[in-house]
């Protein structure tokens, strides 16, 4: 089975995000960028399928600026076989990404596309679902466990009421949640090998997809500052404040 893993380059999870003073976006100059953490889990899952003999070719795909090559190299160092960069300076929206991925699926013919459930920069949580709809494939979203039996996938999803288990036929789109696995580190020998693995660069035009933005950003603002906590001197005062100020008990 061929597996495609789309990955996004985002501001590192541990970086303190700063909003630009003109409100046009967030500061990205000299900021540490890394692979979207959910995508690391997707890459790890693909590698585990390969290690279990259930996948043979893992293609990592990224859409964005030239620097996304670094992120792809990380996926290659983890264990992906080859990489494709769709290079563009245009900000990428979920629908545009889903269309590009659809075109790449047509080209590469994978049976499985594994994505992160969302990217931590825009938190859209849309790309996987849109891709499944465009392809007309089955989808298993927010999965926390995966069992592959021939052409049948059994996935466990974390839903509000507990765990839901679904069976889907391949080809399918999967989006992964945090508890699916613990991604491995890139080993230094593999980082060196990754430098020699194939990385192809395409443009949206090559794929015949129009990715002009459909959304307009009006303004980006800091979330309201969290109020400092207070100390209460007695349980009675605490209860009083919970009842009369916070109004969380009656």
């Amino acid at each position: 089975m061929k597996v495609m893993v789309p990955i996004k380059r985002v501001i590192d999870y541990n970086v303190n995000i700063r909003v630009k003073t003109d409100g046009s976006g967030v500061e990205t100059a000299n900021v540490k960028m890394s692979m979207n953490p959910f995508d690391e889990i997707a890459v790890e899952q693909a590698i585990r399928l390969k290690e279990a003999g259930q996948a043979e070719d893992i293609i990592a795909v990224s859409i964005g600026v030239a620097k996304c090559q670094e992120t792809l190299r990380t996926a290659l160092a983890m264990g992906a076989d080859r990489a494709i960069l769709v290079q563009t300076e245009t900000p990428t929206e979920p629908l545009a990404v889903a269309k590009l991925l659809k075109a790449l699926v047509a080209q590469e013919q994978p049976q499985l596309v594994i994505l992160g459930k969302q990217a931590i920069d825009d938190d859209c949580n849309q790309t996987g679902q849109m891709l499944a709809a465009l392809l007309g494939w089955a989808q298993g979203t927010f999965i926390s466990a995966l069992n592959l039996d021939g052409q049948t996938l059994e996935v466990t999803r974390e839903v509000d009421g507990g765990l839901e288990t679904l069976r889907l036929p391949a080809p399918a789109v999967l989006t992964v949640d945090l508890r699916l696995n613990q991604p491995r580190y890139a080993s230094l020998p593999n980082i060196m090998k990754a430098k020699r693995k194939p990385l192809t660069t395409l443009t949206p035009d090559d794929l015949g997809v129009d990715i002009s933005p459909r959304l307009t950003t009006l303004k980006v603002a800091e979330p309201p500052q969290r109020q400092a906590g207070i100390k209460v001197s007695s349980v009675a005062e605490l209860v009083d404040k919970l009842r009369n100020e916070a109004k969380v008990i009656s």
Partner: protein
Amino acid sequence: MALIVLVLAVGIFSLSRYPLTMHTPQLEQHIPAICPVRTDPDSLSVYGRDWSTLYPARPSGIAFPETIEQVIALVHWANQQQMALVPSGGRTGLSGGATASQGELVVSFERMNQILNFDPVAASITCQPGVITQTLQDYAAERGWYYPVDFAARGSSQIGGNIATNAGGINVIRYGLTRNWISGLKVVTGRGELLDLNKGLIKNATGYDLRHLFIGSEGTLGFIVEATVQLTRPPQQPRVLVLAVPELADVMAVFTAFRQHLELSAFELFTANCMRHVVARGVPQPFAVSSDYYLLIEFESASDEPMDTALQLFEQLLEQGKVIDGVASESEAQAQALWQLREDITEATAVYQPYKNDIAVPVGQIVPFLQAANDLLSREYPDYEVLWFGHIGDGNLHIGVLKPAELDSSEFAQRCAAVTEQLAQLLAQFNGSISAEHGVGLTKKAYLSYTRSATEINYLRTLKQVFDPNGILNPGKIFD
């Protein structure tokens, strides 16, 4: 409860060597006129000792001064009453420096915890001694600056305690010890006199620099009541490698190769069993292979160049068989998770009440020393688990001997003390130190003479006499 009362009683009877004449009820009469005080059993056991477990917590009370004037008043009062005072910071010390086992009055700085001034031109912060190390680091980071002294106890230790121990930590190889970052110090001496030392100056060629006497004095010369610390530019995109090194003899070859070509901000060693304890706590295991020794290396990687250099070095060392595997952080989260392998060792093994050595030798002597120490420890501790970890790039190694569950604590401590005597002799042959960064306190007092000559110790005593003639400040710490 009964146990604690008994402990207190013992504390009061065993005071003969220390100039203590007060006991709890009188404390409560006198101290409140100066500053808040506590004498309840819970507080006595909490504030009576640091992370070292060898000595009991038996203070008479805990004073919580809020101003410099109150500290001065406490010292005057203690001089009149011949009352021993124990300065107390975050009590993360590992040598018993902040331990009060003899009915002393603990002086806690936790209420003097204000940051007083930030000067972006001087790149400095002036603060009270009770500011938590991490609070200081975060305060600097929020302003685009960096306070580089850093170690696992950062969330509890205080800047006053860091100064009093001249704390080191994980970035010493690049930034040096606490001493390098203190440009001003206010201290209240054992005579109750306030000294305002160096006042934030970078240059001040006016004779003896007393500031440096108080840095690392473990609370025996004066109370640190205010400090000006210097800041620097934050490191750009630190990258962490962990390497698997099979042979002890190769550890320093790896060090030399990396240090010659990269500006390192950390070079740390830990053994396979350290890794096992930390992984058992849920920290992700980085390797498929296992190895006897692991090295953690950190450097800045704002451009590709440092990582390319590191990969070349790794390739050469791999060919030579000096390393067998390695991993690199690809994100901040991974960098932090790799650091946990090293930083969580102390906490992961705390349940075994480890007996700790914190030793240093000149960096060039590390390998021959480690081989000799390895022989000594495997001969003397055949049945105990021994952990080796530390800031090996500074010539500093921590040795933790885990107490077997069935063994009585004091018997264990006695056996370890006997081995430490031999270790201290070995250190003397290598021009090493019996305490690299944790201080002498109580735990290393018996071995001081292996590192410091008799003449030197005489000068130390004379200095103590100058600043604390009645011996009220942390008596019995460092030397008797």
